């Protein structure tokens, strides 16, 4: 019983963070039709941001707030300098962002060295959860991730900005005909998506080894998550990440992390191959 509980908590933790990553990818893809291969590096930048700000003497909570914002700024710059020049060329967005990921990764090597760093975990102790002792910080990670996901949904479905974004996703030209500044929305969206990845990296920074190559391990599961559930809605990445994360956790519990990842990838590839519209389209058809 106790082992199962801890397992469930750990899995939820991993799943929630994966949801953040996929959500960022999906937001960027949905609005701008950009496949962001640099998303994993944005996550890693979030972690390095915390590391650096901590070195500078800032308290951990401040780092958690500032690091994602810095990543969002980097995203903004990338959009302006690079991404917007490849709009309308879907495959070229892959290449351009791939190049960006390479530069960011190697930039981190240059600045911080190729090795891995450890971010000092905030000392929050542990609390009993349903009779089991569990580290408080991991609960904080879950709460922050869930809050960020809820915030994203709130922005998209409850604010004027979100309404405009949904209009642009549906029909970019018509949205512009109503006076919506689509360029501005592109910028904001990319920065927001990058910020979500940065937040994921920031909250995870004390729990992972922070190294320049850590991004790839998040990028591919993130993509598989959004493809498995299907593009075109915000709930897609949430459902997909839940599925991918759950299979990963289960398989890891049964075998090893390596085999778990293989299982997830192969299963996801099979799903994507047979349901290119995603599994959620299936349910929609039945309904």
């Amino acid at each position, binding site marked *: 019983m106790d082992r199962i509980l801890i397992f469930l908590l750990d899995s939820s933790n991993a799943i929630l963070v994966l949801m953040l990553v996929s959500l960022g990818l999906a937001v960027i893809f949905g609005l701008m039709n950009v496949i962001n291969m640099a998303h994993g590096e944005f996550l890693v930048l979030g972690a390095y941001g915390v590391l650096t700000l901590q070195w500078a003497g800032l308290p951990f909570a401040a780092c958690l707030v500032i690091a994602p914002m810095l990543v969002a700024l980097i995203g903004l710059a990338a959009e302006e300098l690079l991404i917007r020049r490849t709009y309308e060329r*879907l*495959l*070229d967005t892959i290449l351009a962002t791939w190049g960006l990921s390479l*530069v960011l990764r190697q930039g981190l090597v240059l600045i911080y060295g190729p090795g891995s760093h450890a971010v000092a975990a905030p000392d929050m102790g542990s609390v009993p959860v349903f009779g089991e002792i569990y580290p408080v910080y991991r609960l904080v990670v879950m709460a922050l991730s869930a809050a960020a996901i809820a915030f994203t949904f709130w922005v998209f479905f409850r604010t004027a900005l979100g309404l405009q974004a949904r209009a642009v996703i549906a029909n970019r030209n018509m949205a512009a005909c109503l006076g919506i500044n689509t360029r501005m929305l592109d910028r904001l969206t990319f920065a927001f998506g990058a910020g979500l990845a940065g937040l994921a990296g920031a909250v995870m920074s004390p729990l992972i080894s922070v190294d320049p190559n850590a991004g790839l391990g998040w990028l*591919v599961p993130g993509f*598989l998550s959004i493809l498995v559930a299907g593009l075109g809605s915000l709930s897609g990445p949430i459902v997909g990440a839940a599925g991918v994360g759950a299979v990963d956790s289960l398989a890891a519990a049964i075998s090893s992390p390596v085999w778990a990842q293989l299982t997830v990838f192969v299963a996801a590839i099979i799903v994507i191959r047979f349901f290119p519209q995603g599994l959620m389209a299936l349910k929609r058809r039945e309904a």
Partner: protein
Amino acid sequence: MSRRSVIEMLVLVFFVLLPLAMPTWALSDFAIYFTYAIFAVSLAFLWGHVGLLSLGHAVYFGLGAYAMGVVTLGMTVLPGWSVIGVILAVLVPGIVAFVLGSFFFASSGLTGAFFGIVTLALAFVFERMAISSTWLGGMNGLMSIPPVVVFGHEIYDPLVLYFGLLGLLALTIRLLQVVMRSRFGLLLAGVRENELRAATLGHQTARLKVWAFTLSGMIAGLAGALFVSQFGFASPSLIGFSLSAEALIWVALGGRSNLLAAALGAICVRFVESQLSGALGAVWPVVAGLLFMTSVVFLPRGLFGEAMARLQVAGRRSDPS
């Protein structure tokens, strides 16, 4: 002779004469660059001509490399002859590409970005498998792979390697050009331009793509085999993400829709890298990445692809016939 073949001839002549201006040890470096160029050509054929962007093409290169290594190290029941190694290094990736291709493409299968992401995920899968396989040497890979043996002679003389691989590269480009101009190749171009129309004209576009993918995989495998027998060892880095990414850079920088341009891209990037990585060190990948991004944005046809296209246009203008 068309302007295009004049350019191709001149490039070939340049590389035939190049050893005169080079120390012997540099020749074997160039032999390796030519090997990478064969790999680049296989990717450019798939991407530029068929329109399939494979983000994990090193899988087939790596499979060829491991197949060659396993055979020539005598790890199989087969005799450890180079010929058998090369044959398997072409067959194994070919079969894998055929099976995966059939799976991907059959009946309105994966296209565009989906194909790219799935191939990327596959590169991870294969890299992980290579790392976790003790038979294949795990993280360290296979070491002391012998050179190719032709009629009882081990080929390690730099000059022989240089011309041997230059010849093979030229042959590969020629072969693929013939394929591209054949009926099969024209149909593939049709699939690239408008798959739906090709399908409504009654062509089995899925099967066309499967065979193109298989052919590309076989050539990548050949390049892998040639690589390990010069380099001496096969490691998981040959099969996974990083080499796939590098190959994409070569092809994008060189020119995706022109095989020769892609080959020159591989040779040049590798050469420049060897010249600059000493001076620039860890800054080099940043420079390469920036160049890559710049070319994607401003020179979608690539450096050499653009140059050749311009030369050809200039040729057509000045030559009214």
